[in-house]
């Protein structure tokens, strides 16, 4: 038992509470250790690192205060409101295991503090003001719990995993994609060539990269026209439904709508946006996508600026929750084995947030709260960045079946060409699914299963030979603080 948890409430009551001047936040009612969060409260968990000499409970109370009703001094106008209801309440502060000087602060917010259906409002409250607060060295929003009443005010993913699969007529295996490379410089005509080859070779999707918008070497209408020629040709040559994520990210909302409408006119099943367009624009595009039968792909461009370091910023698990509420259908959520940041357990937590209707508390996956999603559509995670066919057994094991596996370099960099690269990935995937369904120990027999499939598929053999030893083994910067043996619990 730590001392912090037993720190008593120090809230000043009565007339003294509103005497003009400065008062510690914990005395103003922002530290209530006896408070039992209500089912309708929104709860946030912050990792706080107070400046030397700052008491962690006071720091937690300050975060609660500054993210709800408080300012630096007492104001009498509080008395014109039901101020006790509107004050966020820090109710629990725990030291972070194995991290001296850092604490987990649990803060509960009344539902009335938030506008229904607005991520902009939610984030302005929770992260709007507190991250530059001087008494803290660093602050990180680790996780949030949303009451069902609040979840229900959001549209959620425009399409959802199930309907996406129904529209694509693709069941029983991960979807396959590739990002067109080089990501900058191709003309529209050359770009469409890559799309056609990759889709004809067996991929379900190709993808614009985050910074492909409308540049001198390729303007957006040209890209859309050539991509849709490629998509339709590949559909006719395979009998499958294909798609290419047309990135509609632009400088204004009006431009984005114009591009999205052109994509629809051309018969695209999917459009794409970048996280950097902002939460409100994302919600607008999600509503547009729902109205127009469109799958909405979200590239998490920029997230690592605030998600990667454990001491400061916003955890990606929070961003994933916000984006599921906001209404994205696809979200990049890590590969574990690829070139980008991704601890296996933490990534597992992100995937559960995307795909499950109920997330139990699971500290070893970085999930601090039980979350009910109340039948909100499921969001398809996308694994992209430095993965190849030789890892198929690991990818299937780590990421499961409802995921888009994106092999950009692993398709386009194939020695026999793009079609062959796509075919290698598709054959590897189908062979692995078949083996798994047959009850084989595919994780351990993976290399053998791939080698056997490669006997009747030269492109797969070439892929396995080319990338056989490629791995990205670096230590993760964002791993869970708790291991399964930990005794910490809610």
């Amino acid at each position, binding site marked *: 038992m730590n001392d912090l948890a037993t720190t008593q409430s120090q809230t000043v009551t009565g007339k003294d509470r509103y005497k003009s001047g400065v008062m510690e936040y914990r005395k103003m009612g922002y530290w209530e250790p006896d408070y039992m969060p209500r089912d309708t409260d929104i709860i946030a968990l912050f990792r706080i690192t107070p400046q030397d000499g700052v008491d962690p409970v006071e720091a937690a109370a300050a975060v609660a205060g500054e993210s709800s009703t408080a300012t630096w001094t007492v104001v009498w106008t509080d008395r014109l409101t039901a101020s006790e209801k509107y004050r966020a309440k820090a109710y629990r502060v725990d030291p972070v295991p194995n991290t001296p000087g850092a604490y987990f602060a649990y803060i509960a917010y009344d539902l009335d503090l938030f506008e229904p259906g607005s991520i902009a409002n939610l984030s302005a409250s929770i992260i709007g003001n507190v991250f530059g607060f001087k008494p803290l060295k660093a602050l990180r929003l680790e996780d949030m719990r949303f009451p069902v009443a609040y979840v229900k005010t959001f549209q959620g993913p425009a399409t959802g995993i199930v309907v996406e699969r*129904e529209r694509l007529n693709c*069941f*029983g295996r991960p979807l396959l994609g590739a990002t067109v490379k080089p990501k900058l410089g191709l003309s529209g005509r050359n770009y469409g060539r890559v799309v056609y080859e990759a889709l004809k070779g*067996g991929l379900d999707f190709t993808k614009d990269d985050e910074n492909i918008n409308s540049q001198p070497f390729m303007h957006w209408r040209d890209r859309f026209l050539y991509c849709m020629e490629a998509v339709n040709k590949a559909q*006719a040559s395979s009998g*499958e439904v294909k798609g290419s994520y047309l990135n509609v990210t632009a400088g204004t909302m009006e431009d984005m709508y114009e591009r999205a409408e052109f994509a629809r006119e*051309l*018969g695209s099943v999917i459009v794409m946006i970048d996280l950097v367009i902002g939460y409100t624009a994302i919600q607008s595009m999600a509503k547009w996508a729902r109205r127009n039968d469109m799958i909405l792909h979200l590239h998490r461009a920029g997230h690592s600026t605030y998600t990667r370091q454990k001491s400061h910023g916003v955890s990606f698990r929070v961003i994933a929750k916000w984006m599921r509420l906001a209404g994205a259908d696809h979200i990049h959520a890590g590969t574990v084995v690829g070139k980008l940041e991704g601890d296996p357990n933490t990534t597992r937590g992100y995937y559960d947030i995307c795909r499950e209707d109920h997330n139990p508390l699971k500290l070893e996956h970085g999930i601090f709260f039980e979350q009910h999603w109340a039948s909100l559509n499921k969001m398809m995670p996308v694994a992209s960045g430095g993965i190849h066919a030789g890892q198929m057994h690991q990818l299937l094991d780590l990421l499961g079946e409802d995921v888009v596996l994106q092999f950009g370099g692993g398709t386009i960099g194939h020695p026999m060409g793009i079609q062959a690269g796509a075919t290698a990935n*598709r054959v590897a995937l189908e062979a692995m699914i078949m083996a798994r369904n047959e009850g084989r120990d595919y994780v351990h027999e993976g290399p053998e299963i791939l080698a056997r499939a490669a006997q*009747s598929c030269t492109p797969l053999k070439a892929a396995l030979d080319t990338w056989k030893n490629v791995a990205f083994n670096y230590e993760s910067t964002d791993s869970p603080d708790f291991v399964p043996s930990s005794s910490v619990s809610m």
Partner: protein
Amino acid sequence: MRITQGCFSFLPDLTDDQISAQVQYCLSKGWAVSFEFTDDPHPRNTYWEMWGLPMFDLKDAAGAMLELKECRRAFGDRYIRLCGFDATHGWESLRISFLVNRPKEEPGFSLERQEMGGRNIRYSTRSYAVKRPEGSRYQP
């Protein structure tokens, strides 16, 4: 032209033993297996003809394999697919689908382009087979 719909079209056609193993997998998950057939495999032809109802209470893959045999006897000149349906809340759709029979010849599709204003094109995918009436499409 080989149509590549379904879960395993890039692998050599499944043997009956392999199909049976996949059926067993579906049953172990509690999914209802069914067969559907068509002679119009257009990518957006959702409703293939049902070979009876989904086998909700099936326990042994052998039962499904018997149905497949019957279905092939009647419609062996068409595409037949196996579907595994999961009625679990929040899914309530197919969990797996793959081809278990193909016609001898697969004529595939033509892509028709209608030139519109500007450089826009309206695309239509047409099965070559549907030029003939249903039921007589894959005969020589």
